[in-house]
């Protein structure tokens, strides 16, 4: 089972929910089908990863990931311009007898390499980020990606994170998605069995939730909502969920104690251990909903 945690709006509590989910599953010692054991959590917010600050995994492996970019062998190049013609991103320019590559525009699609009639182009991987893999003291398997400062494209790092850090058979995967509603979020959430949308009962929260719901609908993934900081704002969010038939799977009331705990790097479960069985129940509920729609 793969559960993605997303939101649309930043700062609603995705990481709070994702880490709480992971901890509550890891703490369940009952065993058997109803208790899947410690999950794999993948922090897909590669621009600003935070989950490791709360779960404090011990990292065992760190490796670079990158994009394959063209390298032109000037001896074989005839400056025919075919590479620049096929490039959809203007990442190659042929100016006189010179071929220029603009690495930050390159998406690594390989079209230029295949198109070159002289076979003058080879691909070299340009590093754009790192992946780290480890485990926490509670046995949670952890993976995250970190985009190198100055690099524009998060997508390839997220894609490779999901391809290269994989779950054991039967292990629950929790995907902590980045904020927003565009390509990086889609990359993080694709392939999930359920999309958990974390929101807050404010106008910004509701506005961005509607957008996140559209992402889920585009991807055809069943969804549910968690209302974080319940009690602030107004009732519009609750009305929206009711009229859209959007299940509210949990409400976390606003409490300064939770906010203060988060500020210091404490997870929700450390501040309020009573939430653990609630999260476990929610995972079972999610499992039931996946079966219903599947």
């Amino acid at each position, binding site marked *: 089972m793969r559960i993605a945690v997303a939101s649309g709006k930043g700062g609603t509590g995705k990481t709070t929910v994702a880490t709480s989910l992971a901890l509550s599953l890891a703490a369940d010692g009952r065993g058997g089908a109803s208790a899947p054991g410690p999950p794999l959590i993948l922090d897909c917010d590669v621009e600003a990863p935070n989950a490791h600050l709360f779960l404090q995994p011990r990292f065992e492996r760190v490796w670079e990931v990158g994009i394959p970019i063209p390298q032109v062998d000037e001896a074989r190049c005839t400056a025919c311009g075919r590479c620049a013609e096929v490039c959809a991103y*203007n*990442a190659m320019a042929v*100016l*006189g007898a010179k071929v*220029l590559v*603009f690495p930050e*525009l390159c998406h690594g699609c390989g079209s230029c390499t295949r198109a070159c009639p002289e076979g003058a182009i080879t691909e070299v991987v340009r590093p754009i980020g790192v992946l780290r893999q480890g485990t926490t003291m509670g046995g949670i398997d952890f993976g995250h990606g970190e985009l190198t400062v*100055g690099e524009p494209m998060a997508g390839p790092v997220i894609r490779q994170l999901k391809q290269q850090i994989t779950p054991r058979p039967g292990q629950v995967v929790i995907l902590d998605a980045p904020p927003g509603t565009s390509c990086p979020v889609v990359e993080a959430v694709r392939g999930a069995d359920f999309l958990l949308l974390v929101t807050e009962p404010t106008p910004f929260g509701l506005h961005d939730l509607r957008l996140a719901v559209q992402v889920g609908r585009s991807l055809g993934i069943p969804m549910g909502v968690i209302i974080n900081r319940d009690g602030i704002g107004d009732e519009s969010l609750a009305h929206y969920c009711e009229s859209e038939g959007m299940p509210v799977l949990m409400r976390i009331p606003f409490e300064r104690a939770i906010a203060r705990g988060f500020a210091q790097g404490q997870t929700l479960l450390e501040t309020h251990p009573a939430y653990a069985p609630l999260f476990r129940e929610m995972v079972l509920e999610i499992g039931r909903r996946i079966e219903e729609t599947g």
Partner: protein
Amino acid sequence: MRIVVTTTTPDLDSPVDPRFGRGAFFVLVDADTMEWQAHPNPAAAASGGAGIRAAQFVAEHKADGVISGDFGPNAHQALTAAGIRMYLFGGSASARQAVERFKAGELETPGGSVGQGRRPRG
């Protein structure tokens, strides 16, 4: 000497378009005879790397120099590689006036190399 000027309409007497990569038109001028021809900028609608595409266009037309309001770092790199000189012209005067000021040696070139890392212009 062949000079290209970015303009807002396809006319030598059109105001100079301040953007190189996304300027609406390129006017090619023979600086000695002041004969000219206008072309729409093929890069104007490019979703990315417009400066590069525009630089290619200018290189294909064998320009010796380009006059515009602003050159982004990719355009700068491409034009430099092609050996095409860049000249800066601010303000709203016409392309014709810009070429005249170029001939009088009054136009500045963009300072130095654009340096490490991308420095996008916004």
